[in-house]
């Protein structure tokens, strides 16, 4: 089974646009939306919910009225999560659920409680299984939820004998992003030709290399700044990085998004053609063929 992860570093470069289109260009596929705190893939793929799962990530501390306000918990907490008072209380946004306060409390007034941090879903998009999730806004452990999405996608792919999992990754370089690429056979980084895009591309590439994944790059909206695009191309060349294609800026993409469809499902456009060429290159790679 081939796992293709689409990532970007910088947000909004076009991961979901590309992932959504790939879903209709491959035959034997499972889609996994790993951007669990801003999931969008289900908005451009028709989907029918099959099953919902609850996700319990970390725990959170809770202080009971047995609290004697001694302040030991505050002294030992390294996360600034204790709020003074009689009784003391916990700032749930700061608490990481480590249990230090529980261990130091002389009045046995603190306990750790299970904390539901989100849900994940198995849906059906026409013939394609779609695994997606929603982190409860403000929660941590998003990397853990990403891992659940990936695990379920792998199970479904094995059960239904699908050959490819396409992962719509999380932006950034932290735990949700790295959890999106763990186990990926190939990582596709979507770049954009801007100063920020170049800067963030360098950081995500360094991250992908840190986790020793095979990878390539596509440039989205390449013609919005042709000299920045040329820079990315030569940077790829100089660093031996595979460039799988360039997608032009195309108003058809926004129209498709507003209609809730992948751009390749609309009437033919420049962007759709470019994505089809990228899909063809990916197909050769997946089947083990060598790019000439």
């Amino acid at each position, binding site marked *: 089974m081939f796992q293709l992860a689409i990532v970007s570093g910088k947000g909004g470069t076009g991961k979901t646009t590309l992932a959504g289109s790939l879903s209709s260009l491959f035959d034997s596929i499972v889609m996994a939306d790993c951007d669990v705190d801003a999931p969008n893939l289900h908005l451009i793929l028709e989907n029918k919910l099959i099953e919902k799962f609850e996700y319990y990530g970390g725990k959170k501390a809770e202080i009971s009225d047995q609290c004697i306000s001694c302040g030991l918990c505050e002294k030992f907490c390294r996360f600034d999560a204790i709020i003074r008072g009689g009784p003391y209380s916990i700032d749930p946004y700061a608490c990481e659920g480590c249990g230090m306060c529980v261990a130091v409390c002389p009045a046995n007034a603190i306990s750790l409680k299970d904390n539901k941090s989100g849900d994940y879903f198995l849906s059906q998009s026409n013939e394609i299984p779609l695994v997606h999730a929603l982190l409860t806004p403000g929660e*941590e452990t998003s990397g853990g939820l990403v891992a659940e999405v990936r695990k379920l996608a792998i199970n479904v792919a094995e059960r239904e004998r699908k050959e490819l999992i396409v992962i719509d990754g999380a932006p950034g370089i*932290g735990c949700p992003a790295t959890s999106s690429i763990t186990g990926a056979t190939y990582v596709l980084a979507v770049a954009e030709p801007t100063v920020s895009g170049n800067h963030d591309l360098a950081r995500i590439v360094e991250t992908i290399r840190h986790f020793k994944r095979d990878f390539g790059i596509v440039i989205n909206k390449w013609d919005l700044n042709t000299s920045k695009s040329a820079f990315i191309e030569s940077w790829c060349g100089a660093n031996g990085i595979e460039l799988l294609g360039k997608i032009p800026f195309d108003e058809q993409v926004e129209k498709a998004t507003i209609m809730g469809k992948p751009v390749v499902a609309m009437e033919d456009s420049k962007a759709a053609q470019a994505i089809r060429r990228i899909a063809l290159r990916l197909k050769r790679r997946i089947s083990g063929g060598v790019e000439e």
Partner: protein
Amino acid sequence: MVIAVLSGKGGTGKTTLATNLASAISEDFDVQLLDADAEEPDVHLFFDPEIEHEEEIELMLPVIDKEKCTRCGKCAEACQFGALSVFDTGVMVFESLCHGCGLCTFVCPEKAITERPKVIGKVKTGRIDQKIDFGMGILEIGEPSPVRVIRKLKENIDRNKVVIIDSPPGTSCSVVETLRKVDFAILVTEPTPFGLHDLKLAVKIVREMEIPFGVVVNRDTGSYTMIDEYASEETIVVLERIPFDRSIAEAYSEGKLFTETSPSWKIRFKELAEKIFSSSGVS
């Protein structure tokens, strides 16, 4: 006054808004601009700030003294993050899972655990053009969480100034850390179903944290009206809308501020700030 710029969805224009706003109002106010998107900080690319101070952010990781360790397993049992495992050969520490809470050191009956610092990021501070105070957090490659870096960055907040914080995307813990104790949030969105979906998530957070907020619609083409419908249903103020304009996109792609080349936009950004001040009762 502390204003955070956030978005839910990535790439909607947080940095465009934060940088242009800071620059426009720095003519009339003392401004501090902080980049809290420590995973992918980009604000500095628009200014070339002069960095005066650099601080490393450390996480305290456990070090096991093999001589003293009896492999009793109390540390692994206490750790909520699965960062310690007992093997025949000793106790192993999985650094990437460790939150640096210190509980293992505390519970070890043999006092076999000490701590050593590991650098997980940096906070840099300095000045932009001698007039704007600047700060940024940078997460080290391979590190899982920017929360501590953001917390340290925010210790630099100077409440005598107008503080503008560029937030990370999404709605997870790093955004919450950015939003703690801010006075106002600007939610930047784009007029697409993606923008709307993620805007709703961002609204949920700011409402839960009881932070006053308003929305800015970026790259507005007028062809998608659901954002306005949602805003009016929820009585959310749309503070400003920035049209889709190739020249604005090009300025951004080159790392330039469009308020610098367009005086009328500079005035509109000043007015945007005034709207926020008056809605918050700040004069």
